[in-house]
């Protein structure tokens, strides 16, 4: 469960909140939700327009899978997500570092960056539609645009707080620029980058589904839109569960990658 749930300290503020709330709630808390689903299964019917029971969701999903649309759509959504997250992480970390390291650039660019971040990403989708059409490249660009800001701004904050002793020791060791980046900067910035990635991952999932929902050509979002148009309620509920699994899956992927990277390259990882 620890891997599944996003860490809480990043979302909440206040100095005192970090200590107690980092405790992960016990797994038995899922029981009410499961009871609710069981009750739904017992009371609901298969043909209800509004509340079809959970077993019919699975039937609808297996029908979609037999029709051969579920897995290509899932693959399309997952690749869009993965590509956008990778590009957003690379761009966000690089630009964030450059901006954070140079105080003049930081002062000059921060208002523009903050303004861009504050624009609601969902409302930007029509703009990208006009300029890039309806293709997958548009989807990847929009999702990257939406998820780059938390990574960029967190890396910037990390770069500003970078210990000057670290950079001095790099200089005194006569490290070249490449070695300085890979041996000093990246390990030191890793926690701030991942803080941003953790915030960006749910945003990326939402934006991917939204774009697919609007475009209606590819991905799980388009399947949901089609099911909703046909009033196939069971399929809608089933696909919502699939989307939920994406949400949980991406969060736990990020947690896994983070713990791996921090163990091997993070500060204090024992690589001397």
């Amino acid at each position: 469960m620890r891997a599944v749930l996003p860490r809480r300290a990043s979302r909440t503020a206040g100095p005192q909140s970090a200590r107690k709330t980092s405790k992960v709630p016990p797994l038995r808390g899922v029981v009410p939700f499961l009871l609710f689903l069981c009750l739904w299964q017992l009371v609901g019917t298969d043909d209800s327009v509004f509340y079809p029971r959970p077993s019919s969701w699975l039937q609808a999903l297996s029908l979609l899978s037999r029709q051969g649309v579920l897995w290509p759509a899932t693959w399309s959504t997952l690749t869009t997500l993965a590509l956008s997250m990778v590009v957003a992480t690379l761009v966000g970390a690089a630009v964030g570092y450059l901006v954070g390291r140079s105080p003049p650039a930081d002062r000059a660019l921060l208002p523009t960056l903050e303004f861009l971040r504050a624009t609601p990403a969902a409302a930007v989708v029509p703009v990208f539609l006009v300029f890039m059409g309806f293709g997958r490249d548009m989807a990847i660009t929009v999702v990257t645009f939406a998820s780059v800001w938390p990574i960029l701004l967190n890396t910037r904050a990390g770069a500003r707080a970078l210990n000057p002793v670290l950079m001095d020791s790099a200089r005194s060791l006569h490290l070249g620029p490449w070695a300085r980046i890979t041996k000093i900067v990246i390990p030191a910035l890793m926690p701030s980058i991942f803080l941003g990635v953790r915030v960006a991952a749910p945003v990326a999932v939402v934006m991917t589904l939204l774009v697919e929902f609007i475009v209606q050509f590819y991905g799980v979002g388009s399947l949901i839109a089609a099911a909703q148009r046909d009033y196939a309620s069971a399929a809608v509920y089933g696909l919502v569960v699939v989307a939920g699994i994406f949400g949980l899956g991406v969060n736990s992927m990020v947690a896994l990658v983070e713990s791996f990277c921090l163990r091997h390259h993070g500060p204090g990882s024992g690589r001397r």
Partner: protein
Amino acid sequence: MTSIRRINGPGLMVAALLLVLWQALIGSGLATIEYLPAPASIARAIWSLAAQGQIFPELAHTLGVALLAWAIAAVIGLSLGLLLGCSPFAWRHTMASIELLRSMPSVAFVPVSLLLFGFSVKMELALAVYIAQWLILVNTVDGVRGVTPQLLEVARMLRMSRLERTVKIVLPAAMPVMLVGLRLGLTVSLVMAVVSEMICNPAGLGYQLVFEQRALQTDRMFAYLAVIGALGILLNAALLLVARLIPGVERRGGLAA
């Protein structure tokens, strides 16, 4: 960021310069990007939409939905959050369910809400309330559970009743984190209102944005985008201003993020 006294002059200059550059390149016809309007024509579009009074009903619709949804979500989120924060038993036995539901992507609930409520304001409201309440609830729980044990010991020493303890100790101490939840909730309810207008309910700013995009009236499309963005920033700033009036919030280092 911080207060108004520390205005970042060069930063604002750069932002203004970028706008001027955009205007100079596109407005003068030196560079043409298909469908990209110059800032001046976007400003003209905003002005004409406002002068014809066309934008105000849409603005009122979206703003009304966002605020009403936020208010309902605040009532649900604050009360349930207080309950879960104060009772470790309830927290242990429900919090994992809440985290599970909360982590589901918000957009996936658009079709569910549409199925249940049809193309109506109710659909927008239900969606925005559902999504915003989780943020408020979870932050309230975190705030209440994060109250330092020493404060609770003081309450016990003063032999405060349960109610007194909640009102005089727990709520003030948890206020900064709760306010963060309320702010995030307001932003999210606005976004969800716009999203449901974009893809479902044909009303409000979100629908106009998509309508102008389909009509390829890009100056008006950017105008609506600017209005939506400004609305989000203004709502956020208004809430910060109100929060600053609550005594003691700033001193406890709240309002961050």
